[in-house]
């Protein structure tokens, strides 16, 4: 999932595999976020969150932002969900509205769930299997961003993608009110189907929810909290769901604050000051570079740092000059100094240089570094001499290159740095900073003839295909479309075939599949070099002094509802 910026469509479910040693609250590897004994003495109060801007529609079947996906954890449930615990087990999918994990039959093509009884939406209506069917029909009807890439595996899905208004999913989602069962029939086995059901797109909502984007109108959910009001210009309010009773603390624990309020409009600098002054309890936006030093020295106990399974990278368009030349792409890989880029992001405590497409410790990760100043699997530094030689050999010396980057401070600095290095190795480079709202779509559209850009990718769920197949497969490349997520435009039938083989292998032998994914990563970088992987970022959470019980999901970040303010 892409991060457009901290406040807009930061698509994202991020995760982190290593909880940073700087985190003040020592997090046990898998301690439950909410189930380690509910401490009722800490219940109550209002949790104040700040964000510079709202995150768009509140509709969980449409919204694709980290900002709200983090809040949806406390307001919505799917049949299954990612476990609400700390550490690596937060990647595990557990039953939520379903009584148990599904029975998988028919060679991995049929998933049978049984819906829990007696669970109510925040409007008081009981959740039924009819709601489940309607939820998945609506998912297509409202043109969910991933309807065509994830959920079209369901029988009837392709027809729903073509004509969403009449979506029935006949034969794809079969429900039985008498037995409370929900059966999903897939066109082909999909090792990631449960992950896709566990993200907020799979949240079960009432069957009578209108089949159009509900925008600012909250949709009832089953979580511990319910959205009670939303004004994108001022605030989003969540209050306890009066009908909520804990059925599985691992899936949906009881929260602590009586009310959670996210306020919009303050500049991020003022948000930091508000947390310092105890006027806010947490800020969603990344901490500005010039406040990092201050908070990491004066407010040590209120800062939590986490490594993310995400990439900052510079995709190069393999279909237009000069980067339709492999040597030119390799030259840029050799030329950029990733240590310098790490400095631009905030230093070695906030980012780690990377040479691979898959982030470290991610399924399939294979440690290697193809473009390095010395022969090592760890990044050592740039090799400008080799880069210049490759540019000369490629015949692209003196070509004009425009670097496209978002115009927020860090992105633009990275873009400026790349532009400077390109000039250094013999190109005539310029920088094209674009608004945060449009850059991500702009760099995807082949009509814009973007040669090289700066962007980021955060995992949707922990699977190698979420990087390699999504970002570097022919299926992700669509000419003249704003939604061509394969930004480099790499379309190699042989790589696609190997990726398909790895996906099939996931169903039978996950270890072998991950090994193959690692090889694919290496093959892509050594034989195609469509990107310059820049660094893996870390996340900084800055919380208020009065806040306690900080817990962090590798999948969905900090559990907002588990913070206590009393």
């Amino acid at each position, binding site marked *: 999932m892409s991060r457009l910026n901290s406040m807009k469509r930061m698509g994202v479910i991020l995760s982190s595999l290593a909880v940073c040693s700087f985190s003040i609250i020592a997090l046990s590897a898998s301690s439950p976020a909410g189930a380690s004994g509910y401490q009722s003495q800490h219940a109550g109060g209002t949790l104040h969150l700040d964000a510079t801007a709202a995150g768009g529609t509140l509709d969980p079947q449409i919204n694709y932002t980290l900002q709200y996906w983090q809040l949806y954890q406390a307001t919505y449930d799917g049949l299954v969900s990612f476990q609400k615990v700390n550490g690596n087990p937060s990647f595990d999918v557990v039953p939520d509205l379903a009584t148990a994990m599904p029975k998988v039959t028919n060679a991995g093509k049929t998933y049978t769930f049984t819906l829990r009884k007696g669970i109510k939406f925040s409007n008081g209506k009981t959740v039924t299997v009819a709601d489940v069917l309607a939820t998945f029909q609506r998912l297509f009807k409202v043109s969910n961003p991933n309807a065509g890439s994830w959920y079209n595996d369901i029988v009837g899905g392709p027809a729903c993608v073509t004509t969403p208004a009449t979506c029935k999913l006949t034969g794809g989602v079969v429900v039985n009110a008498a037995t409370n069962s929900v059966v999903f029939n897939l066109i082909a086995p999909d090792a990631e189907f449960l992950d896709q059901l566990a993200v907020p797109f799979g949240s079960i909502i009432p069957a009578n929810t209108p089949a159009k984007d509900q925008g600012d109108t909250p949709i009832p959910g089953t979580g511990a909290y319910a959205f009670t009001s939303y004004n994108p210009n001022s605030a989003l309010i969540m209050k306890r769901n009066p009908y909520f009773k804990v059925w599985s603390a691992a899936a949906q624990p009881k929260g602590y604050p009586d009310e959670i309020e996210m306020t919009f409009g303050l500049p991020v600098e003022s948000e930091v000051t508000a947390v310092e002054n105890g006027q806010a309890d947490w800020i969603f936006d990344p901490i500005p570079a010039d406040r990092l*030093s201050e908070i990491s020295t*004066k407010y040590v106990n209120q800062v939590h740092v986490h490594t993310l399974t995400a990439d900052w990278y510079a995709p190069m368009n393999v279909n237009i000059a000069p980067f339709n030349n492999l040597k030119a792409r390799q030259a840029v890989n050799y030329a950029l100094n990733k240590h310098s880029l790490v400095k631009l992001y905030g230093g070695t405590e906030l980012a780690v240089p990377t040479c691979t497409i898959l982030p470290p410790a991610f399924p399939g990760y294979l440690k290697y570094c193809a473009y390095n100043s010395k022969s090592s699997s760890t990044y050592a530094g740039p090799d400008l001499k080799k880069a210049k030689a490759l540019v000369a050999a490629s015949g692209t010396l003196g070509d004009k290159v425009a670097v496209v980057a978002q115009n927020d401070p860090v992105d633009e600095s990275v873009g400026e740095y790349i532009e*400077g290095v390109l000039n250094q190795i013999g190109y005539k480079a310029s920088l094209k900073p674009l608004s945060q709202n449009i850059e991500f779509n702009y760099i995807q559209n082949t009509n814009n003839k973007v040669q090289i850009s700066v962007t980021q990718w955060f995992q949707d769920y922990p699977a190698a295909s979420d990087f390699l197949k999504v970002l570097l497969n022919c299926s992700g490349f669509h000419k003249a479309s704003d939604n061509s997520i394969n930004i480099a435009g790499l379309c190699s039938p042989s790589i696609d075939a190997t990726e398909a083989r790895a996906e099939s292998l996931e169903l039978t032998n996950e270890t072998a599949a991950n090994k193959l994914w690692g090889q694919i990563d290496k093959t892509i970088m050594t034989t195609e070099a469509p990107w310059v992987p820049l660094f893996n970022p870390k996340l900084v959470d800055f919380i208020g002094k009065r806040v306690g019980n900080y817990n962090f999901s590798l999948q969905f970040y900090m559990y907002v509802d588990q913070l206590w303010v009393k």
Partner: protein
Amino acid sequence: MGEIGELPATESVATKIAVKLTAVDSESPWRSSLQQLRRNRAAMVALGVLLFMVVVTLLAPVYAHSIAHDNPFASNLQGRIKIGSHYRSVMQANTQGLGLGVTPIGPTWHFSKYFLGADQLGRDVFARILYGGRVTLLIGFSSGLLCIVVATVLGMLAGYFGQATDWIISRLLDIVWAFPIYLLAISLSVILVTSGLDLGIIHIGAGSLLLPILIITSVYVPYVARPVRGIVFSLKERDFIQAAIASGASDWHILRKEIFPNVAPSVIVFFPLMVALNILTESALSILGIGVQPPQASWGTIINDGLQLLYTRPWVAIAPGLCIVVVCVALNILGDGVRDAFDPRAKLRGSI
């Protein structure tokens, strides 16, 4: 923009013209105005400050290459400099507490080494301010000049020919006038900075300095053209113009020889103020990231760079801000002096 006096300071010249049916006697009134300007001490100090700023910014390459020995357009994130007997990193990693963040070196107050410190890419701020000043002043003066020239031509054509010509020009100017200046400038910049300007045979790249020059010119043209049109309307009824028409002089001749010399003093009065306004507009656009584009730098873009360092390295934003203040105050004082000398009745600071 306020109105200009009905008849500018060349009224006595106009009288002479009416009698002689000749062009303006351009010697004495111009000379007298210039002498008056020279006697205005405040205006001369302002002119001196302005010339100083121009000369200093023109010397930017000398400073960068011969004194600071750095390239203010290349990042220097891994750089180290020697101050006294100590080496210091240009980008200093925080070693306290959790060790988060990297802060650029602050002002060293050593003239040859990062005098005002570094920006977020480790570049020498002082050298960038010198280079940025060249761009800011270039845009300010060239767009000011272009604005005055275009506005004078349009105002004279509309005022002299009247009727359909006047209607067409005036309505076009009204359309531009209808937009708040900054809203229009921002809108044009957002579009053109992304894609550049492509008018068939004319193509201006997205990063070209011509774009901010043209944008700023176009938003200010009506504010000068309208008063010029009013002056020409008034002049047209004067005897010396009627006499010229009666003598069979061509329109071109009348515009050039009779009208223009009488409009010129008023237009000159506008120039310093327009330059100041244009510098401010350019800076505003650049601070918003839609003015001058990297790798070019202007005082506005340096302020933009400094905004993200405001808490730790405030000089990155303050120093170019001070430069803008100094230049604009100087231009305003000079503008007042020019007005006093050339057209004392002109009201310059109206609705611009």
